[in-house]
């Protein structure tokens, strides 16, 4: 998967036709074969744009700042990124006319070890769901599978799970990089903020981190698109996907196979209901 050429062509065209003020894509990292997000305002830098299976980040995150709401942006999105963007559009965070979306039919990106990333192996929608221009051949929606880690943990005893999560969240340093990297975490006030989380969860303790992150994951439940930006950003390498995928699997199973951001104007599973939702867990 190397779409660098196509992206460069589209970017030149957009700048030439004055359709965009800036362009967000990927650039080769200078010291290894990884890539970093790359924002250009100068067409001279277009040749630096690349797209390969190392283009891991969700660039929709760069539409969060206020100034992007007024500028016209060209943006490269993969399948999962486009779902996040779809939600941002639905939630009025991005003006559709301000963003020119280049959707990539993604073949999966690699993790740090050079293997196909877990979320790509389990990807349900590799094709962009919202785009102005599409690159690659769409392969269609795939069958939903419950995350392998979730399935494995579910078989473990309660005590083991409790131990495991306690040991994980001990490492959280409350830097909130997970939140900053998430395209759907654009709130001005957050449950992870020091001020609020002190009130709600107790600040710098394992217990505080765990409960704060659980609340955070519930804010993303039914909205998380499994791009794993949060996990990539986490300096402590916490497996944050466990919380999100757990919520996703419950929602998929119980609420009409809901998956976040697949359709326009779908706000997520918590903002609608069905009369036939499960009721058997209620006394």
């Amino acid at each position, binding site marked *: 998967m190397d779409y660098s050429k196509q992206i460069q062509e589209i970017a030149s065209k957009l700048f030439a036709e004055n359709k965009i003020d800036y362009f967000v894509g990927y650039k080769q990292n200078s010291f290894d074969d990884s890539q970093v997000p790359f924002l250009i305002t100068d067409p001279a830098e277009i040749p630096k744009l690349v797209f390969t299976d190392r283009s891991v980040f969700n660039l929709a995150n760069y539409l969060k700042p*206020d100034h992007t*709401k*007024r500028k016209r942006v060209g943006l490269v999105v993969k399948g999962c990124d486009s779902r996040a963007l779809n939600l941002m559009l639905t*939630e*009025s*965070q991005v003006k559709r006319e301000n963003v020119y979306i280049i959707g990539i039919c993604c073949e999966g990106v690699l993790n740090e070890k050079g293997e196909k990333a877990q979320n790509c192996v389990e990807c349900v929608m590799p094709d962009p769901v919202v785009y102005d221009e599409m690159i690659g051949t769409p392969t269609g929606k795939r069958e939903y599978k419950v995350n392998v880690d979730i399935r494995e943990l579910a078989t473990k005893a309660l005590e083991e799970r409790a131990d495991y999560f306690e040991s994980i969240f001990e490492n959280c340093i409350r830097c909130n990089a997970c939140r900053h990297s998430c395209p759907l975490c*654009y*709130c*001005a*006030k*957050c*449950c992870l903020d020091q001020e*609020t989380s002190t*009130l*709600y969860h107790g600040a710098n303790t394992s217990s505080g981190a765990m409960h704060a992150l659980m609340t955070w994951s519930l*804010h993303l439940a039914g909205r998380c698109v499994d791009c794993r930006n949060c996990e990539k950003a986490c300096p402590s390498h916490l497996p944050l996907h466990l919380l999100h995928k757990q919520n996703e699997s419950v929602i998929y199973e119980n609420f009409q196979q809901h998956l976040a951001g697949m359709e326009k104007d779908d*706000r*997520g599973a*918590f*903002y*609608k209901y069905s009369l036939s939702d499960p009721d058997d867990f209620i006394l």
Partner: protein
Amino acid sequence: MARVGVFVCFCGANIAGVVDVPAVVQEAKKIKEVKIAIEYKYVCSDPGQQMIRDAIVQNRLTSVVVAACSPRMHEKTFRKALSDAGMNPYLLEIANIREHSSWVHQKDKKAATEKASDLIRMAVAKSIANEQLHEISVPVTKRALVIGGGIAGIQAALDIADARIPVTLVEKSPSIGGRMAQLDETFPTLDCSQCILTPKMVDVASHPYIELIPYSEVIELQGYVGNYKVKIKKKASYVDFSTCTGCGTCTQKCPVKVPNEFNMNIDKRKAIYTPFPQAVPNKPVIDAEHCTMLLKGKCGICAKFCEKGSINFKMVDEVIEREIGAVVIATGYDLWDPKPYEEYGVGRYKDIITSLEFERMVSASGPTNGVPVRPSDGKVPKNVVFIKCIGSRDEAKGIEYCSKICCMYTAKHAILLHHKVPDSHAYIFYMDIRAAGKGYEEFVKRAQVETAATYLRGRVSKIYKKGDKLMVRGEDAQIGQVVEVEADLVVLATAVIAPKDNPALARLLGVSYDKYGYMSEAHPKLRPVETAKAGIFLAGCTQAPKDIPDTVAQASACAAKVCGLFAGDTMKKDPMISTINNEFCSGCQNCITVCPYQAIVTEEIPLGYGSKEMRTVAKINEGVCQGCGSCVAICRSMAITLAGFTDTQIINEIVAI
């Protein structure tokens, strides 16, 4: 520093018999913020309240906790006590140590005492975060809008107007009267429908507090309870009502004949017409779909003969705006089209008619001058078969529900048939006879005995033609045999359905509707007249099938609700509603989705202080918000606060134990 006063009630032996009140008071005194803790026999009594008032003043309390019975019992009493002492009444918290402790843990006094202490600790912790709240007053525009001029709309309009509240009555067709005007006589007393209805219609036209806008539709509603703005489209009638005398010459001279919908298309009307002789207003309108002058630019005969020169072919639709405070929806009902009953030959056999067609025929002012005739040959029928539940209670072809009125009007039709054609005989196929109502069962008996109508319990399977007769084959379940009846005329009691425009109107007004298209009431038992949207009420069949007495009762109930709403110059509202801090609002608008009352709207605010750029945030309309807190719980950025139940208050309660 908070200064909390705790007042623990003995409630006679109700609390003190189980909970060790002095111990609880000692526990309460240990709480840092508690300035004073007192026990008293009956805190709700006058001396008890006086004790609270004195304590507030003497100790400069910042909040008060009363540990007594349920807040659902005496919250108002104690709030008033706080008010009387010059304290904001919403600084009160109640610890429910009677219903939640002494009464339910009578055998475990120690645990009950501990629990009471915990409940007080929670209430103290919550009360520390209590804020001063003030009753909200919302101004009201004292004018009601009634949509629909059938009996429901007429009754509601008259009742409201009689209370000297101006009413705007909007009717879609050229005349008010609705379905009831089409009826001949009404069950169970056989009053002449026109005779009881037309005086009310005239009252509407002449009432000083009623503004009647016929031939018009509501196209837009904005605002909230007490402060709605409505746009009404007045369709072009091409007749200047201010000069027209209603002499009727134009209708006589008009050469164009059109099926008469008022008479169920049995006869014809003209292209310029008044729907029926007693119409109110009794002024003709031109049917633009059929008038040759309007279609082809030729004719204009009506204009030539009009002495007053009232005809104006250049008239256009007009939009009228009104400011109103409340809305009554009374759009009535439609009848189900029995076409899916192919096995009955509906559409093929002319002598199968619907009940309303029969009703028009037996009406003295109807197309056949009150005598039922066969549409095929104009002969007076002798054997008439009535089939009930056509479409009703029929999931396969029609709708699931019972239309409620068919049993009664079919009995009425049998009696009317007997009156009009004494040597005739009525056969009635039915599933059940549902005659619940004052005088209803007796009325059905009257049809069965006096009229000697033959009631056959069972469904009709087939109707076929034999000569000029219709053979009706059905089952008589009571004898368990197939019966065949030779009929001159078959009358189908078609189901009552919601008007097809109801969903569109409901969306326009912002009220909800059910899967059949009926408007949804706020609560099926306790609020059957209100919609979920404050200030919008339902009368008659727009909510569900109903007979005339029920419709009139509901219309009057609407009027009472409207009058109650308009009783003061402003409406007082509980201040325990949500507010949005737009500094933190990210404008995702998810709260708008979950709000059951459409109380949340968007507003544009400057991006920063003095900025010309705008951003969109949500705003709560305090006139509409009912304080459920749905929006608060889903607001991820914690921008929404529900007064009285803030996050801080609830968390304080949780961590207080």
